[in-house]
């Protein structure tokens, strides 16, 4: 069930109604409603994979309790490994088996040894990378004694399968989300309105920006050999907005939906395209994953302690692993590697924590220096996205060469009317994002406009009508495949 479908528009009010109706029966019943709704939501994709989530949940629940009782370090480590191997085993099998089998086969062929790898016809369970990381964070935190394990199986099941963020995040840390399942949730008008507003903005990003950009990005990337350099550049630009609209839109809908149920999820995107350097970009893009890798990989590896070589090594490891998390393809690995290369100069000159605040804070317009910084960062990001979107490394390299080979040629897009419309919408979108950049999401930051009731309702209606009028051809959320 996708967020941008009629099915979800029917599902959400029903679950919302039942959830608050059973409020008086206690949080256990409310949690149970969440579990049933979440399993139904996930089962709509493929009910067979419900057993995977259920199994992961049971393993981590049991391991968590056992870790609490066990004092011997070797046994505790063994329990941690049981959880890690179960979770990463599922992930490895469903997501990476074919990649490794083919890569080994190619490597052996390269060395002159013919080897046929058995390729399996495996369906990737939707969102497996997201819920696997979420449940792993629980076990790691319990292992490190940073979190008390839960005895409440229903609450834990609800935490693992919480439908708003189950299939594409934000990847919540157990220490933030799990305790919210223990506490009584009160319906809060302001929070619910904020949630609805965030859902609306998320829908705009997904349905208007991402889906319309996808139309052109797909056409240009799929036929990149037919297009001129400037068109290829536009294709990369369209994909840049597509992936942002798609993923941050999904996150907004997820966070907004959670607010309706009285939960607060972490911010996942903080206007990344206004970043002044790559380090800032990665503090603002897919925050829940970046911080996951920081907490559970970068810091255990030594983090920024130690010498320069150690820092460089750790940086490359987390970027490449992050690329690999996105998909079993060399293109994702190179995308991660390229971002590490972008990051390197900042790390070596110790400028990676220079831009921590909101750009041009307190001003309407940025300075020329900020414009140049944002422009350069944006350009580097656009180039990196080519690897992310391309079908293969060869395709990415051809695409980039094409982009710079004939930069002056004319655009060759057939549907000029739609093309103009989407460019206008992107400009409007970025203006709203700029004006609202100090909020958790753009329209939350437009406090001046939101104070006036008529203006506020007018904005809601205009966005809703625009979502309806300009919605592009329905596209799957890109991040579901991860």
């Amino acid at each position, binding site marked *: 069930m996708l967020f941008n479908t*009629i099915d979800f528009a029917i599902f959400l009010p029903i679950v919302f109604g039942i959830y*608050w109706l059973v409020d008086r029966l206690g949080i256990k019943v409310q949690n149970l409603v969440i579990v049933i709704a979440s399993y139904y939501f996930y089962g709509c994709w493929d009910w067979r994979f419900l057993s995977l989530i259920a199994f992961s949940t049971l393993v981590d629940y049991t391991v968590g309790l056992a870790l609490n009782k066990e004092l011997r370090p070797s046994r505790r480590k063994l329990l941690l490994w049981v959880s890690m191997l179960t979770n990463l085993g599922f992930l490895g099998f469903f997501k990476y088996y074919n990649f490794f089998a083919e890569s080994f086969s190619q490597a052996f062929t390269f060395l002159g040894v013919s080897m046929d790898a058995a390729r399996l016809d495996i369906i990737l369970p939707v969102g497996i990378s997201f819920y696997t990381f979420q449940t792993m964070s629980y076990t790691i935190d319990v292992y490190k004694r940073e979190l008390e394990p839960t005895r409440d199986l229903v609450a834990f099941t609800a935490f693992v399968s919480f439908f708003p963020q189950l299939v594409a995040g934000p990847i919540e840390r157990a220490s933030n989300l799990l305790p919210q399942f223990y506490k009584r949730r009160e*319906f809060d*008008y302001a929070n*619910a*309105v904020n949630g*609805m507003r965030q859902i609306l903005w998320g829908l705009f990003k997904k*349905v208007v920006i991402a*889906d319309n950009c996808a139309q052109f990005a797909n056409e240009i990337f799929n036929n990149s050999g037919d297009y001129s350099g400037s068109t290829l550049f536009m294709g990369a630009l369209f994909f840049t907005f597509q992936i942002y609209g798609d993923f941050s839109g999904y996150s907004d809908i997820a966070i907004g939906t959670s607010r309706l149920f009285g939960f607060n999820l972490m911010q996942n995107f903080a206007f990344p395209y206004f970043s002044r350097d790559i380090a800032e970009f990665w503090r603002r893009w897919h925050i829940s994953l970046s911080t996951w890798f920081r907490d559970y990989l970068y810091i255990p590896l030594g983090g920024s302690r130690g010498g320069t070589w150690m820092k460089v090594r750790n940086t490359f490891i987390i970027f490449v692993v992050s690329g690999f998390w996105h998909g079993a393809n060399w293109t994702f690995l190179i995308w991660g590697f390229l971002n590490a290369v972008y990051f390197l100069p900042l790390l070596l000159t110790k400028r990676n924590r220079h831009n921590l605040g909101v750009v041009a804070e307190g001003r309407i317009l940025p300075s020329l220096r900020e414009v140049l910084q944002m422009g350069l960062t944006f350009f580097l990001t656009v180039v990196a996205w080519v690897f992310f979107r391309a079908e293969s490394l060869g395709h990415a390299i051809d695409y980039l060469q094409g982009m710079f080979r004939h930069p002056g040629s004319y655009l060759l897009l057939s549907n000029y*009317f739609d093309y103009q*419309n989407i460019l206008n919408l992107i400009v409007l979108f970025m203006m709203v994002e700029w004006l609202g950049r100090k909020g958790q999401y753009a329209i939350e930051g437009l406090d001046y406009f939101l104070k006036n009731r008529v203006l506020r*309702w007018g904005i*809601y*209606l205009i966005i*809703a*009508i625009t979502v*309806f*009028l*300009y*919605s*592009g*051809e*329905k596209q799957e959320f890109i991040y579901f495949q991860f």
Partner: protein
Amino acid sequence: MRHFLVNFLIISALLLLVLTSLFSMADGYTDAYYLRFTTSKKSNLILGTSRAAQGLIPQVFDSILQKDFYNFSFTVAHSPYGPVYLKAIQKKLKTTEHEGVFILAVDPWSISSKSQLPDDVSNFRENKLCLGNTSLVNCKPNPEYLLKNLNGKFITLLTSKKDSSRFLNDDGWLEIDVKMDSAIVNKRILRAKNDYMENLKTYKFSTARLEALKQTISFLKKNGKVYLVRLPVHNELMDIESSYMPNFDKVVQEARSLSDGYFDLTYLNSKLKYTDGNHLHQESGRLVSKTLALLIKS
């Protein structure tokens, strides 16, 4: 909670009002099919693919046969004979009257599937298209159709009038108004020819579709007279069609004998004008409709 729900309902009602106004703007320019899902049940139907949708003009039949005809033909993708089309016809037909006239255009493609498994009903491509995904065929406005089939492009409800080359009339006739100078027409014919050459590789005769055609005839026979017609096409396309199914008349023999008459109008092929070789031009459409109506009358 009450305050939240009241506000939510107010804003939803406002939005619904805007959307209803927008939906009511959908008309014959919206797309080539919408209006056919908005009219009431009909007693006399013209059925088939796009050849019939563009080439058989209800107005002409009305004047000669003194009946109120409705063109419920779509395209070879949407309405080849099959369970989906039959179900839609059953919904569209006014079954209280039993003196109807039904004209079914048939050709090799309308009883074939673009698939390696031509009889795999569950994978017929029309299952996912408008006739397959819209349960209501007599509702105005028809939000179900618009939501499921406009691919989210609701902006076209405001802008589609710019494309004046295609208009779906109230009687279901799809009027095409395109330039007819010979160079452009030849280009279109060449394109259609190439497409049909491709079809030779991808289409396969379907027993299930032929069976559905017979079921359709049997169902309609309960409500009136059923006539089969093979419409004219450009000679070059006819050659391709003949090489695809040389014994077409024999293949549909059972269906022909179930019907009240079969008219093969392909003898007119070279005397008519086509917009692209596959579809009759308006003028020729009128002529063919008149010829067919007179044949039915006689």
